[in-house]
């Protein structure tokens, strides 16, 4: 019993696998991965910049690019080169698809970033607590993660969404704002699971390393071990999984929009534009291909770039990936 107190949860201490501890310095050593990161990163920066710079036009009600300006006489027109606002064609209600895509990009990317922020905050906290404290807290938190993992993603998002929407609408006094915030929250609330698992694993192997033991032996209180000692060693996996959460969240939103429970019209996202366009674009006669092709290309390119950056970061941070030939 005394032994257990001095060395808490001996049954949980993993084999010391220094190899699997991802080091932040790895990024510099394996600069070969920089190629993927910089390509993906510049595509992302370009798209995000474009969407942000054009916001004054896409949000200005009298501009032709305004995402909800309905040109009733020019509905469902294919792309036309001579008028800039019709470069991407027009929607069923005569809105400029280019304007919708630009405004939608901001919302889609915000959803991704919000989900990533929530998943970092929740996932890292849960992961560190579970990994460092161990014992019943670890079992409890990890069972919770298991349970949430066991439920289909969309199911949880939908349930969170319907439960949160009306109380938030009352607080914010605007159903559009509530819809947006609930979308951020509910997608964020289901995307921290992988982060929590990964961080817990990292903390488990970090915990046995001499420098943490030294800190503990020197009597450093727990919260001072978390921040200055553990957190800097977790920067690698946190960055990687946060980057990989963003495309996931954007995809989730598109699925929700497709099922008709995503963002409220007329606010656009790439996913909702694509799912709205699907029916008209697949029509065998007079297919409105532009309604599907443009939002999907933007969505695909962005997700591709994000996955590219995430993969590049993961390879860069993980020294284990380098070896191995036959």
């Amino acid at each position, binding site marked *: 019993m005394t032994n257990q107190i001095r060395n808490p949860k001996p049954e949980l201490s993993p084999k010391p696998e220094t190899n699997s501890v991802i080091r932040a310095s790895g990024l510099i050593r394996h600069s070969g991965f920089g190629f993927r990161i910089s390509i993906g990163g510049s595509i992302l920066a370009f798209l995000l910049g474009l969407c942000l710079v054009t916001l004054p036009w896409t949000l200005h009600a009298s501009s032709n690019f305004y995402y909800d300006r309905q040109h009733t006489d020019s509905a469902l027109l294919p792309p036309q080169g001579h008028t800039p606002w019709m470069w991407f064609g027009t929607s069923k209600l005569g809105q400029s698809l280019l304007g919708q895509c630009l405004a939608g990009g901001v919302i889609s990317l915000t959803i991704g970033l919000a989900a990533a922020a929530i998943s970092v905050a929740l996932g890292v906290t849960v992961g560190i607590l579970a990994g460092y404290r161990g014992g019943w807290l670890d079992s409890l938190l990890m069972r919770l993660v298991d349970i949430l993992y*066991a439920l289909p993603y969309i199911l949880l998002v939908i349930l969170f969404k*319907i439960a949160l929407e009306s109380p938030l609408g009352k607080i914010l006094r605007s159903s559009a704002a509530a819809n947006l915030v609930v979308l951020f929250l509910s997608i964020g609330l289901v995307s921290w699971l992988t982060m929590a698992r990964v961080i817990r694993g990292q903390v488990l192997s970090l915990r046995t390393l001499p420098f943490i033991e030294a800190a503990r032996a020197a009597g450093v209180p727990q919260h001072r071990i978390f921040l200055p000692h553990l957190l800097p060693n977790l920067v690698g996996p946190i960055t990687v999984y946060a980057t990989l959460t963003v495309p996931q969240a954007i995809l989730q939103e598109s699925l929700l929009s497709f099922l008709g*429970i995503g963002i409220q019209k007329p606010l656009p996202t790439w996913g909702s534009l694509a799912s709205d366009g699907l029916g008209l674009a697949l029509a065998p006669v007079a297919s409105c291909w532009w309604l599907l092709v443009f939002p999907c290309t933007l969505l695909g390119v962005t997700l591709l770039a994000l*996955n590219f950056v995430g993969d590049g970061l993961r390879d860069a941070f993980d020294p284990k990936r380098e070896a*191995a030939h036959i």
Partner: protein
Amino acid sequence: MTRFIAWRIVQLPLILAVVYLITFALVWLAPGSPYGNNDRALSEAAKNDLKARFHAQSWEKFLAYYPWRIVTHGDFGPSLSYEGWTVNDVLRSSLPVSISLGLFSILIALLCGSAAGVTAALHRGGILDVLSLSVALVGISLPPFVVAGMLIVIFSDGLHWLPSGGWGQFRHMILPAVALALMPMAYIARLTRVSMLDTLGHDFIRTARAKGLPKRTVVWKHAFRTAFLPVFTYLGPATAYAMTGSFVVETVFNIPGLGQHFVNGVKNRDQTLILGTVLVYAALLLALNLLVDIGYAVIDPRIEIAEKAQ
């Protein structure tokens, strides 16, 4: 081993109970009501009448009636929005459809994904590697409904090889299963590649090659069996994904699966239908995860299960 399995089986009903309660809380708190959502509004008296008939006057009454019925009779109760249907009827007609579609797509994902991963690992840095990785990246970067739409345009409208919707014959299953399989396939290919590369660097591979075994034997009998482990653990999440994605794919291909009923249930606030569907999904996934864990222990004897059981 037996102790570990027994402990996990004991946990199952507990986890299901928690899932039931969480879902119930979320559904009960949600605004809107399942009654009178159709064209005509119901009077207050008629609503109360319906509530009394469905044991849904208050949450205490609901929880006192339904969970017990589920445990003793396996009866999820009547559907609140589909008139004349019980939740069991809905499940009986649609669950087999969803399960067969999901299993078929996981099978495709597993076969194609691991083959692509092994090929990529063996030709590291070569054209095949780059090609399979890019296909995999595209696979995880497009929403399933877009993939489904493209498949319909190419194979149904364009080439007239396969039907664009419906259910009943094997040909109806191919396009939706492929659309559903693409994302897990991409993940499996990437997982297999990384873990193959990892395994191929180990000493026992060099030993096997050094003692003169042919490359094919070493790759498939020695390396692949070890490299398959992470893929095996991914099967649980992959199935969860296949079920989730099936909501969307079923809509595109007009398949009478469980997904549409869940979405309708949510839109109509049909509490019994939502609870029934969630519970069945969760039970399926938990059972599958348990099987995966047991299978993992069978495949890889290095795992010390006794420790986990604590």
